[in-house]
């Protein structure tokens, strides 16, 4: 065996990548041997996406080297990556809906063969991997799993030596996941290496034979997922050190004020998550947290509570005993339910409109900024000015366009606009997402002050540290289901990590023995290579 053959398929040496204000990757080094399935683990923002974009040539590293099959390589573009034998299946597919499978495959290839030859090769690949897909079907008629197969076939046609998969199962059904795993094992047995990114730890346990864990852009550990439990991997992802809880000992909780029970709603096609029987209740003076990995139904839940989504919703939303689920967005605001969605530019605020006009949009009835269909410009200007002052928003004044504010300042304005209406309940998603540390602590303090006055706050966030610092109780949302609420004091952080990774309540108690019990849809073990 030559030295080259023994070299790992991919080796990263000290990769660093900085963006303004954030270090996405900091001296990342690890190796993936030929024919292995290697997991890349980490929370949102840990730097996984940046790292694979560097490997696939979409972005370039500031420092460090990539060694592929023993050769030092420079990967300047996806085309160069494909030429080396690196394939990638993206989380969101770039497919043309009104075209056939075959046409999509041809469009994505650098130099496709003639139609009949291409069709023959596609059928060959489909047959040999046991994938079912009709090359002449139109993409818009296909399921998400079938669409993913197009991307996989496109990658397989280039005979990859390294296949990168970014959250491939986040939109698949359990059956589709099983099919995917069979294909990946088959590929690995043929010598292709696979770099696999997923939040779903029980899948990693079954699929992968090695793993690198990233946190804050750094490699914080590596493990063999087959010898670890979902629990221990979650621990490594989240990290041991947790911030001290803020002291809110003097506050006393009142009665249940805001109660959501049995809430179900269909997801927006094609990628939306449907909500399944979500129930929780929040007392007055309490901050309630909803943790979870992105895309597990958070946006849908917020839209249902705010009243944006009303079609197909079942269940009840009660504020101080009053049923709100049949009311419009405006009527809910008037009743004291304020909300602020994740996306501030374009959803919470209209970028092209002034701050005063944006204030009217959500505060018109509670603050009397419009009456009888006529806007009270002076009152709106006054209110916007008060928000700007109270929340120290850096803006030229109430006439400044919302889009001219920095993300953090606009978020402060949006939060202030809602909080200064003195809502009975304030539901907010990602209150400090993309906001610098100073503004973030200001926003958190404002929420604590709001509950001190007896209001209730629901915070939806992917930042677990934030929730632990801020909340009194929290629950975890996964695939549209909300777990039982847990007291943050003395919370079992491992259990939270497991819930976020999709291991459900009943399985957690048995998890201490090493491995979590196999979830019902976990596929069988990797078969031995057929020789």
């Amino acid at each position, binding site marked *: 065996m030559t030295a080259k053959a023994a070299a790992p398929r991919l080796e990263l040496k000290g990769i660093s990548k900085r963006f303004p204000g954030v270090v996405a990757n900091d001296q990342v080094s690890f190796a993936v041997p030929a024919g292995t399935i290697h997991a890349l683990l980490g929370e949102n923002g840990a730097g996984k996406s940046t790292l694979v974009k560097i490997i696939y040539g979409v972005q370039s590293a500031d420092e460090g080297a990539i060694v592929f099959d023993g050769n030092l390589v420079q990967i300047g573009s996806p085309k160069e990556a494909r030429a080396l034998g690196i394939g990638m299946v993206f989380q969101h597919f*770039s*497919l*043309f*809906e*009104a075209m056939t499978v075959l*046409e999509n495959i*041809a*469009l*994505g290839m650098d130099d*496709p063969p003639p139609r009949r030859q291409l069709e023959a090769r596609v059928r060959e690949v489909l047959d040999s991997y046991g994938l079912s897909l009709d090359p002449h079907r139109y993409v818009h008629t296909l399921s998400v799993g079938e669409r993913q197969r197009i991307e996989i076939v496109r990658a397989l046609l280039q005979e990859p030596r390294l296949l990168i998969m970014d959250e491939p199962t986040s939109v698949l059904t359990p059956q589709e996941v099983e099919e995917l795993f069979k294909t990946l094992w088959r590929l690995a047995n043929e010598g292709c290496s696979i770099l696999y990114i997923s939040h779903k730890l029980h899948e990693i346990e079954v699929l992968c034979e090695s793993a690198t864990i990233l946190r804050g852009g750094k490699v914080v550990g590596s493990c063999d997922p087959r010898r670890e439990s979902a629990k221990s991997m979650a621990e490594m992802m989240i990290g041991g050190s947790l911030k001290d809880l803020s002291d809110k000992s003097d506050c006393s909780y009142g009665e249940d004020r805001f109660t959501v029970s049995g809430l179900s709603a269909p997801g927006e096609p094609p990628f939306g998550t449907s909500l399944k029987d979500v129930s929780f209740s929040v007392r007055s003076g309490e901050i309630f947290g909803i943790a979870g990995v992105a895309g597990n139904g958070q946006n849908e839940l917020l839209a249902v509570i705010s009243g944006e989504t009303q079609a197909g919703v079942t269940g009840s939303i009660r504020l101080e005993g009053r049923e709100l689920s049949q009311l419009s967005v405006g009527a809910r605001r008037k009743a004291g339910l304020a909300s602020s969605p994740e996306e501030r530019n374009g959803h919470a605020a209209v970028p092209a409109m002034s701050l005063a006009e944006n204030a009217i949009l959500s505060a018109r009835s509670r603050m009397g900024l419009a009456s009888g269909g006529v806007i009270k410009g002076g009152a709106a200007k006054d209110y916007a000015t008060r928000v700007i002052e109270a929340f120290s928003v850096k803006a030229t004044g109430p006439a400044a366009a919302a889009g001219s504010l920095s993300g953090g300042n606009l978020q402060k304005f949006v939060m202030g606009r809602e909080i200064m209406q003195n809502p009975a309940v304030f539901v907010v998603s990602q209150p400090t997402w993309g906001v610098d540390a100073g503004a973030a602590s200001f926003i958190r303090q404002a929420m604590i002050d709001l509950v001190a006055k007896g209001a209730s706050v629901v915070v939806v966030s992917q930042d677990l540290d934030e929730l632990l610092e801020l909340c009194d109780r929290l629950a975890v949302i996964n695939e549209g289901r909300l777990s039982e609420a847990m007291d943050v004091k003395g919370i079992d952080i491992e259990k939270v990590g497991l819930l976020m990774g999709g291991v459900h309540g009943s399985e957690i108690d048995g998890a201490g023995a090493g491995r979590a019990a196999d979830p019902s849809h976990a596929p069988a073990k990797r078969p031995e290579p057929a020789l």
Partner: protein
Amino acid sequence: MSLDLLVAILMTIAGAATPLLIAGLGELVVEKSGVLNLGVEGMMLIGAVTGFAVATTTGFPVLGAFAAMVAAALASAIFAVLVLTLMANQVATGLALTIFGTGVSALIGAPFVGITTPTLGTIFPDWLTSTPLLRLVFGHSPLVYLGLLLTLGVWWFLNRSRAGLILRAVGESDTAAHAIGYPVLKVRYLAILFGGAMAGLAGSYYSLVLTPMWAERLTAGRGWIAIALVVFASWRPGRMLAGAYLFGLVITMELQAKAAGFNMFAPEFLAALPYIATIAVLAIISAAKRGSANAPACLGKSFRATA
């Protein structure tokens, strides 16, 4: 009804259908690339007057037809710069192009009113058109045959060639096509120029074949029918052929009814028949669920390249 009359009617249908077919196929390619050009009527008028002017001045109608294509393509180039490079609204710009074409053609055509021109004759020798049946096959203007070949050509281009695949991809998702690395604006420029040339050729058919004379607004709104036919055809060249000949039939019915002294309805009603049929067809297609299913997803949207 004598055989002669029947053949004459069938040939009139082909004659009425051909300009609709040629202009419609051009617009079909433009729309498949994701651009809505409502200036077809204007470009046809520019083509009609240019063709007539060149044919009368030089005495070569073929030269007139070529000049018509070039002139209308130039007019479409103005449209392309406005909507692609300057990202103007496509609907408003297209309407402006029609108004522009109407005015410019009246201006250029003023000295030519009342003059007749040599017409584009048949291309086959006389003995091939000696009997009515032979005439039905060989007696048409060359543009009639060109329209049929063009149908086949556009179908092959869109469904069988790589360039056509890229054109459809650009019309389907400009951002995805751009991300994969295809030149979205270049593809759309070429499509618009092709559409302009075809509109010009169709316009010259009115001044060089159907009526060898020039009058203001000679095309009489047929450009709008061509645009409607694209929707009627669900962006498919084969259906475009069927649609154009169907409308050719409607137009011929109007002419024949007038000639036969059929006077149950006012002549104005008969003249309005093709346009009433257009509205009816569009309403039926829009009501049918899958009517616009084949529409290019990016139709009428401006594209701004990012990153």
